[in-house]
């Protein structure tokens, strides 16, 4: 007798077999003649400079930290959601069960919402917005002249 997760394991095994079979078949079929240029890192046609350990925006890290907090909260919410509307429990407690569970979870989520509001107010959720720079040209021709020309030759 296969249990549910035994079948899921069978499923995973089949998926692994399929993926390795496809990779192996492609390996047998395709040509393989590498050279130095093919094996170099792609950088829009330039010679690659250094490796990929570049600096990136620290906000990605902050987002990951906030995510961990909320994901743990989510894991707590799943079992709660299943028993929340349970009619047996509601009847056994004369209808108090649902309200009690809802109030309890409101307190729990409320604390996390406070945390979200704090991060929001502190600006941790604000991404750096690209600011468009209008190009400025020092020109002896005044801008009003262009407008005059435009006005003059405007098609009515």
């Amino acid at each position, binding site marked *: 007798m296969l249990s549910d997760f035994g079948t899921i394991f069978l499923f995973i095994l089949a998926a692994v077999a399929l993926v390795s079979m*496809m990779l192996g078949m492609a390996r047998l079929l395709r040509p393989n003649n590498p050279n130095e240029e093919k094996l170099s890192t792609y950088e829009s046609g330039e010679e690659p400079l250094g490796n990929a350990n570049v600096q990136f925006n620290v906000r*990605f890290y902050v987002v990951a930290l906030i995510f961990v907090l909320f994901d743990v909260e989510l894991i707590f919410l799943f079992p709660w959601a299943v028993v929340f509307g349970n009619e047996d429990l509601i009847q056994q407690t004369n209808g108090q069960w*649902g309200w009690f569970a809802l109030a309890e979870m409101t307190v729990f989520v409320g604390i996390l919402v406070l945390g979200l509001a704090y991060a929001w107010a502190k600006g941790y959720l604000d991404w750096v917005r690209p600011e468009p720079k209008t190009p400025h040209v020092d020109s002896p021709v005044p801008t009003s002249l262009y407008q005059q020309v435009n006005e003059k030759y405007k098609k009515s």
Partner: protein
Amino acid sequence: MELTEFIIKAIVIAVIFGLTLLIAMYSTYGERKVAAFIQDRIGPNRAGPFGMLQPLADAGKMFFKEDFIPAQANKWLFIAGPALAMLTALMASAVIPFGHTLRYDGVEVAVQAVEANIGILYIFGVVSLGVYGIMVGGWASNNKFSLLGAIRAASQNISYEIAMGMAIVAILMMTGSLSLREIVDQQHSGNWNIWYQPLGFIIFITCAFAECNRTPFDLPECETELVGGYHTEYSSMKLGFYLFAEYINMFISSAVISALYFGGYNYPGMDWVYTQLTGAFGEVAGHNAATLIGTAVFFGKALFFVFFYMWVRWTLPRFRYDQLMNLGWKGLIPLAILNIIITGTGVLFLEPYFTALLK
């Protein structure tokens, strides 16, 4: 008995794999035809009638292309990345209920690979594993574009995962079960969850778009900024795995949307059809025929959402990264929390009220 059961399971698994792969293959064809239709072109029409063999030609090309691993890349992780992406995409289809049961010779087989009692939690977990495929592949390429694309993808996926999970929690509060089959069975005939959870549905479908890295959320592979994003260095079958995984994910998320919100294999008037069919063909054949109609309805709903993905892709422009993050953290997460609270009060207050009213 042991062996028959094992064989039945093996057949079901093979069929579901084949179906998923077939649908993913023909989604690429569908995508190009839909794009062509929307942009007033013809689309692929050379390989076979109406270009129907185009996906096979593409797959053949993937097999015969030369594949090179960049000298600076981490070789094993470079291979593991796309394999992981494909694996997680394939695994998710295990618990989706495609239909009711089929009866044959006194044996009743559910049209589903595994009837797991934590189905939706399993899908949620496997989908969140999908980010590893992209992250590992992007990092192992040792390319600046790939790394930036991978970090973007990870950040985007984890941001939208929270709102997605909260939308699911609101559904669970109504159904009280984690089993997908149970959730679908509770939406008998036209009693679909979409009537009770319109806000949750909008949150869920938005997050599904972001999780699949589809336009308008395809920033990880934003070609104007990052060349090819996380798969810049990939070629041949490994690139094929990434592209294929995306289409499989699209189909899986469409199937989950139709199971959670649109009643899965339930449709209005199904009881009438069932009695008619069992009356006409007898108990067993009628039951099987009704199940097959339900499965067809399920695939119809899922394929509609696959089409919806394509429709949106060729209609909306891409988000900017700060807009994406603002929508996720400041828009969808507060809305999802609000949705949970509304659902909670609805279940406790409105449901007994309406039940009393209907009596």
